[in-house]
């Protein structure tokens, strides 16, 4: 056989002259696995957001007074602007090896690159111009996006007395939905700062408001790699996420003491799906030790529509690994609680299963009025790498 490279392609094709054996690749099975993986990764993303929120709270609290006192002055080595928050990202693999800079439709994009990083896994930073209103730029097509009531922003705490909002929005991109999660707050210096959660296992984006027409420099990239423990002692964290069933998912995570986790809210189902109302699959997932080993303990409520004034159902989880649920019919308040043992990491998610509310799952759970334990009960949680 000639090894002339001109003939090598033909030789490769000759390898496949004989029919290949049947494949075990099954698209339906992959979709099913993909759903599970997405769900877990979103939850992991939420943990990152929680960690980041806490880290930002800690570090920004220390940094912002100085920033406020010296706006525009550099506190970065070599002289970048001082509007960057020194947040620490424990989930990044290591210090970036290189940065790539670009400006796209007025949004400064910084792509952090790592050697030997699988293709497409490079985190990205985005810095955008300051705006007087609560307006976020979209990742694509970079048009301004204004928060709307349907975006389910959730107050998750404060930074320097200013509220921090978590919100999630989805956008339609060529028949696919892109989910984007933000932590958004106004800094003491009066700028909008936004930290974006991974785009469904996509790049980690940090958007920080800057003065107009300012482009980033390498020294302004606020990436460090040292993981840090997130102290959640003074913050009641509630994250709302859009589930892969287009419902809402509320996730809280932390190392809890011997406390009850409770959920209260309003079931917003309009009752248009069936006469009996919509069943909601409230799933509670608890895991021992760390999030890496969650076990899905959810089960489906047998409830078939509860009168508005019915007693609020509740459940308890006396030990980790015990399942529980609560659900209500249209317009009813609901409450669920779970008791966890001292010293375990607990991960709880509540979501609406599309199969029980096929047409209006996104409205089946439209408001959660409280979630979590007494903030004083939160203990130090080990997030990140």
């Amino acid at each position: 056989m000639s090894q002339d490279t001109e003939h090598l392609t033909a030789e490769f094709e000759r390898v496949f002259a004989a029919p290949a054996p049947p494949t075990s690749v099954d698209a339906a099975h992959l979709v099913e696995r993909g759903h599970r993986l997405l769900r877990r990764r979103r939850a992991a993303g939420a943990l990152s957001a929680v960690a980041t929120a806490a880290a930002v709270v800690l570090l920004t609290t220390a940094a912002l007074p100085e920033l406020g006192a010296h706006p525009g002055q550099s506190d970065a080595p070599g002289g970048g602007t001082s509007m960057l928050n020194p947040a620490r990202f424990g989930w990044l693999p290591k210090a970036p090896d290189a940065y790539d800079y670009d400006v796209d439709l007025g949004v400064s994009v910084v792509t952090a690159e790592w050697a030997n990083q699988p293709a497409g896994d490079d985190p990205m930073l985005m810095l955008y111009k300051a705006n007087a209103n609560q307006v976020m730029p979209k990742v694509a097509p970079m048009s301004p996006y204004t928060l709307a009531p349907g975006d389910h922003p959730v107050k998750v705490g404060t930074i320097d007395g200013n509220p921090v909002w978590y919100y999630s929005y989805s956008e339609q991109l060529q028949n696919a939905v892109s989910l984007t999660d933000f932590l958004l707050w106004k800094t003491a210096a009066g700028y909008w700062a936004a930290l974006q959660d991974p785009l469904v296992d996509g790049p980690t984006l940090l958007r920080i408001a800057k003065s107009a027409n300012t482009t980033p420099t390498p020294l302004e990239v606020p990436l460090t790699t040292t993981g840090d423990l997130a102290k959640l002692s003074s913050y009641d964290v509630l994250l709302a996420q859009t589930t892969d069933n287009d419902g809402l998912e509320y996730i809280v995570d932390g190392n809890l003491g011997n406390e009850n986790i409770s959920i209260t809210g309003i079931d917003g189902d309009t009752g248009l799906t069936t006469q009996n109302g919509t069943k909601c699959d409230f799933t509670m997932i608890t895991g021992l030790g760390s999030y890496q080993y969650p076990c899905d303990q959810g089960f489906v409520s047998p409830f078939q529509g509860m009168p508005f004034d019915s007693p609020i159902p509740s459940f308890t989880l006396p030990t980790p690994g015990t399942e529980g649920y609560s659900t209500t019919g249209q317009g009813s308040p609901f409450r669920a609680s779970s008791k966890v043992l001292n010293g375990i990491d607990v991960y709880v998610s509540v979501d609406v299963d599309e199969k029980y509310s096929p047409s209006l799952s996104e409205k089946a759970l439209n408001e959660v009025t409280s979630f979590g334990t007494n903030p004083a009960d939160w203990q130090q949680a080990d997030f990140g790498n």
Partner: protein
Amino acid sequence: MANRQRDADFTEYVQNKTPWLRRVAYLLCRDWHRADDLVQSAFLKLYVNWDKARRAGNFDGYVRAILVNLFLSEQKSPWWKQITLHREQFDETTLDPAALDFDVAGSLDLMAALGAVPPRQRAAIVLRYYCDLSVEETAYLLSCSPGTVKSQTSRGLEALRLVLDTPHPHHA
């Protein structure tokens, strides 16, 4: 629902592209079962990163990059090295064609010879001469410089020649 549309698009893509991606995987790993495993893992990663791949505007390139990286990552993992050594007993640093048990007839000739080429060089050869990627495209996919691609390809081709030019005892 948009997610249903996403699932439908993904399903259609998998059904259309599985034969192509299996072939790439098979050239890399030389085992159809392992090729299926690689392809499934690559498709699963593609599903999770569907939006990002869509933004990249090149699903084929994206999933191929995932596949190659998965293959190379597996080569580094201790468990796979152990299996490989037990199965083939080849040393990537010193080519010993005589120690290889391969069939020199027809296409098996090339496949056996590919097995004697270190994985990264093999990937470079497959990407360059089967996938018809440029040096620059291959360099981007392998996260190395174009010069490295050239040297890897050259060394890989030399290894192929060495193996193929060596008379095998089964066919002497």
